[in-house]
């Protein structure tokens, strides 16, 4: 800890001792460097897409598709960001999405129509989050283990429910949401949900006591406890939140695919964690931003799209993603002032 002295661009050094905002401006500027670099990467990607496939990539329908695909994983990533910020991890998000999507699309559930599907997806997500949270917060289980167990069980249960079959959705209200008629000013409803979750997530993290407690628990759990914060309850809430996001994502996926499958959400946990990490979230907790994570999601989705348009195989995509994660972390190590 003591080896790293604060680099010069750090708060006080720059801030004149006078009153007013210079210090928070410094903090803002530092956050901006990270966000700006992510925006820069995204801009370069768009440029690459525009140059290699000018007609197809910049086509409105393609951009709508990219954003729609980003929406499902994006909602999951917002929840994941909160969990990682608190120093935890949720490996079960993909499996929860799968379980919620199949439970919400059984023949029995579909009888209750649109709201039945939405309600079931959300309740299943929150229920799984509750199990995770109780095990971790009150059962003192390591998040990695508890959510790994949930990953296995939820996938298994999803397979049991579907017996490996695709459950086609017949409720027209749900299917209509994915149609072009439902677009609001050219924006698909799924993207609007993603945007809403992002905004709410940002507000909760930055403007509420819940967000503050999350950061405090992640930054220094012992200090948070001794400051009078109920650390265990906070942890429980965080896994509930992640489960809720998975439930919403499951619903979006049902709309997008018109079905529920036990293979849904495969490897979402890795994509969500990777997006949060390249967005600047500290895996040890205490630092991160919703905007960064969302940009991380957009970057990944755009890469996937560009590779697909250029007929590159998914193995190349995976390699590129891996390289980006490493590069992002290395860059952040440079810019971040490690305490």
């Amino acid at each position: 800890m003591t080896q790293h002295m604060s680099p010069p661009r750090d708060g006080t050094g720059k801030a004149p001792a006078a009153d007013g905002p210079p210090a928070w401006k410094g903090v803002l500027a530092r956050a901006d460097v990270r966000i700006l670099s992510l925006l820069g990467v995204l801009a370069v990607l768009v440029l690459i897409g525009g140059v290699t496939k000018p007609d197809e990539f910049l086509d409105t329908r393609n951009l709508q598709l990219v954003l729609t695909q980003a929406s499902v994983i994006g909602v999951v990533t917002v929840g994941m960001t909160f969990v990682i910020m608190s120093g935890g991890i949720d490996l079960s998000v993909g499996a929860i999405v799968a379980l919620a999507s199949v439970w919400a699309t059984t023949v029995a559930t579909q009888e209750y129509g649109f709201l039945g599907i939405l309600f079931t997806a959300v309740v299943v997500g929150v229920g799984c989050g509750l199990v995770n949270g109780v095990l971790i917060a009150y059962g003192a289980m390591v998040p990695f283990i508890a959510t790994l167990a949930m990953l296995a069980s939820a996938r298994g249960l999803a397979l049991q429910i579907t017996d490996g079959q695709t459950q086609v959705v017949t409720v027209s209200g749900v299917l209509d949401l994915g149609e072009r008629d439902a677009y609001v000013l050219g924006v698909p409803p799924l993207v609007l949900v993603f945007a809403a979750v992002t905004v709410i997530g940002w507000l909760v993290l930055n403007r509420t006591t819940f967000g503050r407690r999350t950061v405090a628990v992640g930054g220094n759990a012992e200090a948070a406890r001794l400051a009078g914060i109920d650390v265990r309850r906070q942890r429980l809430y965080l896994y509930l939140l992640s489960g809720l996001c998975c439930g919403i994502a499951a619903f979006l996926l049902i709309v997008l695919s018109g079905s529920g499958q036990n293979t849904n959400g495969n490897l979402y946990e890795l994509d969500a964690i990777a997006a949060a990490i390249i967005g600047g979230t500290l895996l040890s907790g205490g630092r991160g931003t919703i905007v960064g994570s969302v940009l991380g999601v957009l970057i990944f989705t755009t890469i996937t799209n560009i590779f697909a348009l250029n007929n590159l195989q998914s193995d190349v995509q995976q390699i590129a993603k891996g390289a980006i994660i490493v590069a992002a972390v290395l860059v952040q190590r440079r810019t971040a002032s490690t305490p």
Partner: protein
Amino acid sequence: MAPEPPLLSMSGITKSFPGVRALDGVDLDVQAGEVHCLLGQNGAGKSTLIKVLAGAHQPDTGTIRWRGEEVVLRSPIAAMRRGIATIYQELDLVEHLSVAENVHLGHEPVGAGFVVRSKAARATTAALLARLGHPEIDPGRLVGELPAAQRQIVSMARALSHDVRLIVMDEPSAALDPDEVDNLFRIVGDLTAAGVAVVYISHRLEEIRRIGDRVTVLKDGRAVARGLPAKSTPTREVVALMTGRDVAYVFPERPAAAPAGEPVLSVRGLAREGEFGALDLDVRPGEIVGLAGLVGSGRSEILETVYGARRPTAGQVRVDGRPLRPGSVRAAVRAGLGLAPEERKAQALLMLESVTRNVSVSSMSRFARGGWIDRAAERGAARAAVRELSLRPDNPDVPVRTLSGGNQQKAVLARWLLRGCRVLLLDEPTRGVDVGARAELYAVVRRLADEGLAVLLVSSEVPEVLGLADRVLVLREGRVVHEAPARELDEHRVLDLVMEGSPAA
């Protein structure tokens, strides 16, 4: 006989950490075959000095000469290769490995290039353990299964498994029974007879008398005495060197009238098995009560138990006559308790966050409606608290990690001030705080008390307790051995009480 150059000669060693100068030009000479004792109170710089010697810290300035030749110890391995081994207080053993594996960690005997020759490792380990008087320790057992005393022996065996010329022992007797201490001293005697030098750190003066050859006393990061004869220097002189100071601390005046009124905090029969015994104490509003004692006397444990961070095995804590739910920090905070813990960075501060957020963390609900934080109100209140304590810089938006130790402590106090707490528990409040900033901190604490706060203060720095507190409880090994108004005690008396076995010469 021409004097041989010392085995080790450190000169002008300085080492600073953010906000505090831990070592300020320390010199240390150690001769081959001697037991050189390092003495000093907490925070005097002993640990930092031995970490520099062990290659774990790099000094900012200063030179180290080893066997007459200037060396740079870049890493613990570099130090070990030269024959400098360190046995730390918190033993650095791997619990899930066997005794033999721990002893040979990092230099396993290998055959065919990489295959560990376990049998050979066990044999040499067994020999080392026998040499240390503990042939009964099985080299094949897991270290995690051994009692503390035997772990110490393993740690020592590891040090001896290298070709060692100097061993640093950091409070080796702290975890040992009297029998085991005798064995330890026999080992030290064997080592020195073989020409190995021992740097021995202890709080216990009578141990130093028994085995020490020379003593170096550290105080506030400086060596205030070097190479004193260990056996003949009077206790008084050693104690005075440890505690006497170049900088006279200015302590605020006590109020003329003794604080009256009902105690706001009363503790009855509080105990934690193995840590401290049945403890009774009362603190009234406006009163500062000090607990004086050495490391291991149970001071911090008492504060943390009162605060609910540890669950007592017996007894009760009452605030305003109402019993607190035991083992609940939240209940304590709600009742009006606040803790400024010993390890500020690990236990109190959110190092990535601004001063404002560190100050407001315990009172967030005051600035929130429906969970929504009014940031302007929060910032204003934090700023007011920061100004009231004259925290520097007075801008509450700077990251708390950029503050000096004293100002970080003020940020913690501001947290409780903002919370409106009524009983402040201070654990080593000036640990890591620059000498110059201490007087200011003392004045702040006294002013808060004058405004009606009840303060329970723990410190290993006896002058601090005597200068700041109204009433003092002296602790030894978890029990109160003396209680008196601070003005009726002096430093030497307290140190005599605190230091087991040292005569009141």
